[in-house]
């Protein structure tokens, strides 16, 4: 259980994102004037963009990663991808790169290499649209994720274990998800157990709790439950976590509570930094 497997095209790893699309995700984040759902969708699109770029070479996209998005809300769980990707849940990164919902033209400012800056046209793909409606079927989504990950690990016994990133702003409305999460964390490859990362998003000005080492620092039972549902940060991601949060202790859980915009962005960035690509 060493989390040190090289990630290659023969032995890819898997990222499975679970995105809460319940009605409460409609709430605006005052600092940016966007809803939680819109901001999470922006960060997820940026994360998918960066994962595809990491695998992209002059000759094409290499399948180091397999990616899935499960969206949950309004009593249903569905693939978070649309268009060509809506069939099935997990897709090789090359298929994700080939099938965004649309590609937007944007302009960015870049260093011109001679001490100045120039405007450069750039294309930004969109895969995931924000939706917010109804309740939070967290047990249902974890159950479906477990089935997907068992199948994935059976097919990739030597791979770096899958990483499941659950993003939510509220409590489960279909029961206690803790027991199912315990079962997800027992699904494994020869290189380690599946990793479950939980991100709780919030619009308040409260200081977020990021990578806690004990549940006692969390203010309520919901936070304590999400802590218990989260995996310890694996050894290969600890240095990355400490780059962002220097106080991160050995044994800290991959969990952020009451995360605002900065913590949300950092969480996705650190959580998808599985390295050792070959």
């Amino acid at each position, binding site marked *: 259980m060493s989390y040190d497997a*090289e990630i*290659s095209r023969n032995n890819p790893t898997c990222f499975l994102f679970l995105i809460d699309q319940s009605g409460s995700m409609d709430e605006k984040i005052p600092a940016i004037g966007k809803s939680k759902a819109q901001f999470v969708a922006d960060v997820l699109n940026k994360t998918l*963009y960066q994962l*595809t*770029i*990491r695998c*992209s*070479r*002059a000759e094409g*996209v290499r399948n180091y990663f397999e990616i899935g998005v499960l969206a949950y809300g309004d009593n249903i769980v569905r693939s978070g991808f649309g268009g060509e990707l809506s069939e099935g849940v997990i897709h090789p990164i090359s298929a994700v*790169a080939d099938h965004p919902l649309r*590609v937007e033209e944007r302009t960015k400012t*870049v*260093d011109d*290499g001679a001490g100045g800056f120039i405007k*450069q046209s*750039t*294309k*930004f*793909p969109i895969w995931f649209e924000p939706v917010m409606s109804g309740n939070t079927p967290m047990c249902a989504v974890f159950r479906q994720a477990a089935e997907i990950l068992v199948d994935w690990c059976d097919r990739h016994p030597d791979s770096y274990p899958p990483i499941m990133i659950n993003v939510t702003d509220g409590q489960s409305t279909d029961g206690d998800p803790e027991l199912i999460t315990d079962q997800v964390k027992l699904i494994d490859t020869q290189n380690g157990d599946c990793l479950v990362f939980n991100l709780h998003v919030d619009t308040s000005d409260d200081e977020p709790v990021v990578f806690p080492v004990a549940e006692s620092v969390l203010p309520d039972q919901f936070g304590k439950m999400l802590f218990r549902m989260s995996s310890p940060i694996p050894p290969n991601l600890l240095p990355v976590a400490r780059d962002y949060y220097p106080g991160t202790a050995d044994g800290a859980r991959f969990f952020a509570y009451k995360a605002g915009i900065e913590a949300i962005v950092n969480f996705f960035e650190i959580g998808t930094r599985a*390295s050792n*690509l*070959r």
Partner: protein
Amino acid sequence: MRLDLQATVAKRLDEPNEDVCGTLPFRHRYALSDGATESFAPRQWAQVVVQAFLDRQAVDRDWICRASARYARGFDRVKMSWIAQAAFDRGSFATLLGLTLDPGRRTAQVLGIGDSLAILGDSRGIQAKFPYQTAIQFRQRPLLLASHLANNARLLAPGAMAQATVQWSLRGLHDPVLLLVTDALGAWLLSDPAARWVRLLRLRNRVQLDSLVRAERACGRMRCDDTTLLRIR
């Protein structure tokens, strides 16, 4: 001293090796570059880096600008798909291990950027290593030469190039040998330096390096990565 073995073993048989080496014997100059996997065109960038070092050994802002321009001329960004364009904008990254011998003064100067390793030894064993000293250092994320000038700020900081350079005296060494190796072989060597140094000195040809690398990969003692050795003695 002269190059007596140059050999490389790719990580996959169906793709180009991303390690590149080059020599300029009449100037006693040798270069090795390992293109990083997470790059747009690592082999092309490694080729540019090696040629740039053979042309001029002093790496500075102007050196990187010229190398970047030479690399960029190989691509047409405007005609690329969004994904290729984004990866091109992110850039390519590579190590540079440059060796310059001065036969008159009997010195070897090594420039080491990234995790490719130079080792100096003689009949008694390893005498010096650069830039790493232990196998565990290969777990770090190395600072690499980037194809975009803007991504080389740390390398161009005052004093950075001096830190990346070492000069070794060859005086007093009996039958000195210099090895330039990429990271998989470097980490393997430094995990058991006494025994493995001897094994590398005994290699007679490319086929023997190929056999050694495949055997060590198969039993998990060497990472499966492009693997290159230059031996000068």
